[in-house]
């Protein structure tokens, strides 16, 4: 019987619970530093309690001690920064592999996409394995029996928080996406893409350098191996070269469109429709054609 251990800070773990249910064994959530009552739909909750102001990362040793995974069990962790820290502590404690990119998780084996998705490996789950995967949404179901363990945290405190002024976006459900890359020369020029997005009712996304480095869009809008994974009906890539670290995040899109001045840009190899040209003239023309 494959039992599932879920390590979580945020209750956005519905996908992990679904996997655990499909595997059939007991599903235990080890919850670090947050209210355990929101972790519905699992069989058992182990709450690692910590004083106010202690970041979840500081609870790593207590979390690792609570995960008593046996041979054949899997440990599932949502791919979010605080939770990855806990996953690493669990992997070190168990001497277990820690892998991202699991596509299929079965009772005996898992299929893992590796190296930016260029290859897939089937790995044995005979030994405990820590799998870092998309967490999903808030779960539903019954509240589980919960036990509380007082943490012995590392000496770390959150001294201040500067909340974002922009609301977090979840692009995974978007039907249409207009994505911008370094082909745009200035932040103001993004208006061309925003106009197209508005005309077709699309969400705006980007390649990583536009969010990190340029800082023109929020970090939760970049697509790729380290960013969002999306599968819209249509993905329109404007001035994006199509490095695999980007395309791995959008390769499941139904229809892909690319506009790029370089006819050899790798993005065209994964596109249904393309225009080789300058985004500064082509994008406004597409917007006009839509209208």
């Amino acid at each position, binding site marked *: 019987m494959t039992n599932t251990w879920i390590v979580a800070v945020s209750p956005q773990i519905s996908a992990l619970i679904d996997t655990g249910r499909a595997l059939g064994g007991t599903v235990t959530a080890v919850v670090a530093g947050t209210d355990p009552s929101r972790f519905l739909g699992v069989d058992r909750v182990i709450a690692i309690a910590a004083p106010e102001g202690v970041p979840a990362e500081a609870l790593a040793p207590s979390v690792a001690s609570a995960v008593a995974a046996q041979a054949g069990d899997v440990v599932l962790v949502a791919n979010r920064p605080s939770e990855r820290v806990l996953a*690493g502590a669990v992997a070190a404690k168990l001497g277990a592999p820690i892998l991202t990119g699991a596509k299929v998780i079965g009772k005996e084996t898992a299929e893992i996409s590796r*190296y930016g998705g260029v290859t897939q490996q089937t790995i044995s789950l005979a030994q405990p394995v820590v799998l870092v995967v998309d967490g999903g949404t808030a779960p539903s179901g019954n509240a589980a029996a919960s036990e509380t363990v007082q943490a012995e945290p590392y*000496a770390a405190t959150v001294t201040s928080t500067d909340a974002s002024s922009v609301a977090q976006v979840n692009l995974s459900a978007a039907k249409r996406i207009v994505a911008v890359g370094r082909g745009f020369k200035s932040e103001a020029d993004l208006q061309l893409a925003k106009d197209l997005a508005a005309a077709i009712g699309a969400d705006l996304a980007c390649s990583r350098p536009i969010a990190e480095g340029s800082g023109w869009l929020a970090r939760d809008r970049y697509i790729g191996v380290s960013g969002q994974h999306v599968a819209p009906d249509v993905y329109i890539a404007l001035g994006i070269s199509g490095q695999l670290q980007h395309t791995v995040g959008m390769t499941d899109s139904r229809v892909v469109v690319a506009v790029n001045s370089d006819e050899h840009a790798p993005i065209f190899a994964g596109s249904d429709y393309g225009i080789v040209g300058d985004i500064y003239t082509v994008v406004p023309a597409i917007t006009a054609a839509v209208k």
Partner: protein
Amino acid sequence: MTIVVAYKYAANPQDASVGSDGRIDWSRAKETVSEYDPVAIQVGRQLADAAGSELVGITVGTTAANSSLARKGALSRGLDRAVIVADDAVRDWAPTRVGSVLAALVERIGDAAIVLTGDASVDEGAQVMPTVIAGYLGWPCFLEVISVAQTADGWELVQAHEGGTRTIALAGAAVVSVTTDATEARTPGMKDILAAGKKPAEEVALADLDAAEVDLTVTAHSRPATKAREHQVFSGDDAPAQLVAALRSVGVL
């Protein structure tokens, strides 16, 4: 006190070829100091200069990681010295096992106050190595850190967090992964490369370190099916109109 940066000598899978059996041929992909690691080295340089301490790079890789080119590549970025494990045996190791060896190198250095890493390696891109190193060291770990400053008893970190930021004060040593834009990585000049040739790089044998036993059994490889695409390129003045018509005809607009 020593500031340590863990870096990886790795190739971009974009440049590798994959056989129909799913096995990767890396021979045409050129290894370099992984794209984001120079940012961590530069953050480390600033901290080391501020504290008047030494900046030591550590890496665990195949024999290529200890080539003259690899050593210069890392040392020219601003390290004072490097401690290198270079053994082809690690090629197929589980990341957890590699992390245990990196942790063993940190312990060997002895007085490390912080271990910095880049955001992710160009080949795996998994963003987990710092967390494993921290697990083995028994140190706290923080990812997506925008800035690092030393305090009387430890470190103050500003971390990207849920769209905003938060500041964390911690006592003692830590493993910290910095964001890709935490600082601007310096491009080494000729002088840096020449100086790098004179900096010490020590190779440590795997056998002299305590690597964790981690069982990762790969039972099959396969090449993922890629979605068939239309590959239709529109040209001419009415290309935008043709594109819109095509998108309407397939029902996505």
